[in-house]
């Protein structure tokens, strides 16, 4: 770091001094500074990383070469190495043999040699590359291009990291899902109407896997239905309220009301979903149950209605805030044109502003749906975990996300169909949200072409 700054300073200084002799530089002096700093940092960094990667294995090789003729197995050799390491740190509590003691000494020796030689090597490289870079700084050497290229490469790496991570996640999902479908037929998963993964969990692990016992266990229809049902309830709450409050904020509210109301609504978006969850489970659920009982209805305390309703409240700010933005960005000219024709405010909104803002509004709604389908906490807490196949909003049901939580809470074995079921569900969820997003984008694009 320090060396980087100093080299920046020196590079710039040299550039200034060249400039002082009335030679025209090809780049600003700062570029020479950056150039030198990069030269100072990058080769040293690369060497350091390589060293850090290879040092432990080389040290290990040297230590274990002492034991190589004594017929140990690989596992035992590893154990010896670990013992040596902990002994050298003074944390070893087992029996100390003379062999181990010498190894530990040797290990410490090697480490300090490595440490010293590393420092020397790195310093040497830094100095060498600085000198090289410094020599290259002359008035006719271009420094702007390499610096820009370097920045380009850094930014590219950053975006590559994000993309690779996504691809990695998708692939891990795909492989686990494929494993799952090796045991459970795809048909049973998609069309089965009975979801009871606990059945798979109670099996005796020592027995070999018997696929037939899962035949009626992983039918995902109830949880797909539950997911879309709860999302539907949520959207029934969120779309009208969100849209109307968005329209109010954009068109009717005075500047002052808007100034206070908008942040207030956006606070809703900042509430953690866990809080919504226990609000739904402890306040709304029992409340609905009481009302239901008073009206002579059988209402479960963990009803789909409670979860969906609270989820809808959670989504309101998304829809209202986004549609407010979209409506506000409809050109004033369109409003003026409509008012000048003698249209009232509501006519203008209904016939001119709403159609013009529709792509954005549809986009915000689909984004809301996507949130509703992916929402976990509220459902886990408020809607029960039993996967009932029901369309009665007063009964409890479960969703994809809630089932994933149920499956992965506590101990699980990898490679077990029950665990893999979570991946299959995750994959399904991913595909659903992905297609929703693609669909949303297409809708938006289509309307945009039409109206612009």
């Amino acid at each position, binding site marked *: 770091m320090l060396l980087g700054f100093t080299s920046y300073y020196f590079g710039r200084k040299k550039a200034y001094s060249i400039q002082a002799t009335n030679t025209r530089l090809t780049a600003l002096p700062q570029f020479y500074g950056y150039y030198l700093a990069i030269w100072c940092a990058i080769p040293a960094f690369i060497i350091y990383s390589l060293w850090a990667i290879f040092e432990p294995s080389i040290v290990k090789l040297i230590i274990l070469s002492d034991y190589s003729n004594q017929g140990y197995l690989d596992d035992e050799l590893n154990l010896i190495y670990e013992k040596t390491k902990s002994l050298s740190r003074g944390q070893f509590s087992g029996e100390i043999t003379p062999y181990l003691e010498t190894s530990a000494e040797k290990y410490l020796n090697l480490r300090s040699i490595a440490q010293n030689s590393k420092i020397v090597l790195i310093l040497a490289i830094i100095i060498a590359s600085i000198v090289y870079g410094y020599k290259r700084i002359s008035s006719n050497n271009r420094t702007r291009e390499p610096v820009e290229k370097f920045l380009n490469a850094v930014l590219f790496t950053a975006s590559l990291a994000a993309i690779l991570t996504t691809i990695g996640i998708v692939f891990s999902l795909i492989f686990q899902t494929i494993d799952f479908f090796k045991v459970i037929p795809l048909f049973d998963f998609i069309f089965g109407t009975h979801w009871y993964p606990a059945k798979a969990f109670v099996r005796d692990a020592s027995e070999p896997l018997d696929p037939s016992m899962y035949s009626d266990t992983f039918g995902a229809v109830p949880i797909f239905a539950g997911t879309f049902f709860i999302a539907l309830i949520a959207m029934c709450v969120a779309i009208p309220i969100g849209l109307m409050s968005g329209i109010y904020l954009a068109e009717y509210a005075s*500047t002052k009301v808007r100034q206070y109301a908008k942040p207030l609504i956006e606070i809703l978006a900042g509430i953690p979903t866990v809080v919504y969850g226990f609000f739904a489970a402890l306040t709304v659920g029992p409340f609905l149950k009481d009302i239901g009982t008073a009206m002579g209805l059988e209402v479960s305390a963990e009803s789909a209605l409670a979860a969906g309703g609270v989820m809808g409240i959670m989504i309101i700010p998304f829809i209202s805030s986004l549609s407010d933005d979209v409506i506000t960005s409809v050109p004033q000219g369109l409003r003026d044109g409509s008012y000048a024709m003698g249209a009232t405010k509501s006519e203008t909104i209904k016939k001119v502003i709403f159609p013009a803002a529709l792509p954005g509004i549809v986009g915000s709604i689909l984004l809301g749906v996507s949130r509703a389908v992916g929402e976990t906490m509220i459902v886990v807490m408020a809607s029960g975990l039993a996967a009932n196949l029901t369309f009665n909003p007063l009964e409890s049901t479960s969703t994809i996300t809630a089932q994933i939580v149920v499956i992965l809470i506590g101990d699980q074995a990898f490679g077990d169909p029950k665990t893999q079921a979570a991946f299959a569900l995750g994959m399904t969820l991913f595909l659903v949200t992905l297609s929703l997003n693609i669909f949303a984008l297409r809708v938006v694009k289509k309307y945009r072409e039409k109206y612009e």
Partner: protein
Amino acid sequence: MKKNGVKMIKINSKNVDVFYGKKQALFNINLDIEENQVTALIGPSGCGKSTYLRCLNRMNDVIDICRVKGQIIINDFDINDKSCDVVRLREKIGMVFQKPNPFPKTIYENISYGPTIHGMAQSKNEMDEIVETSLKKAALWEEVKDRLHEPGTGLSGGQQQRLCIARAISVKPEVILMDEPCSALDPIATAQIEELIDELKKDHTIIIVTHSMAQAARVSQNTGFFHLGELIEHGSTDKIFKNPENKRTQDYITGRFG
């Protein structure tokens, strides 16, 4: 147009003041607009001519901080009076804006918009007829008759502006206000619109705000010159351009300021 040798006054404004918040934009405007004539309002930017124009159909209502004082009398009725129905007023007084602003709808729907909200057509046939006559009057019919159900936003700038004019005349207004209708158009489209304005004055009283002196001279019979929120001078276009009374008018017209 004169009836019995007397000029018919369509709009009569008395002591009109306009404020944006605390800032006064118009000072004591007294201006009579003759019926079935084209009146041009000229003046440097920010002089209040557009503000005055927007008073005439109460478009300033849309702006929160805007207040209008004084009387504007149209057909013996003060439009600033509380009993005035803004919807009816705007049906009578159409407006065309600086930038063409067709609605994001089809050409047909753009024209049928006004007649629909004012309940002017009883049947589909009647509506078709209104759309056709409006487009013909706006000299756009020939160009768009085969694509009435395509979006109005797909037309060229000049066509869009004529579409907006057709939209304005679809409700048969008595007065048409035009706020620099040609400023976003090329010379050919401008010429078409000017020709159209001349045609329209048979049936409508037209008030046009313009930055182009030449345009004012070409299309208008009367001219008003605004400067810094005041109406400096008004009268027949001939007189204003050839023999202005006020030195500032003369300076502006001859291009010495503004």
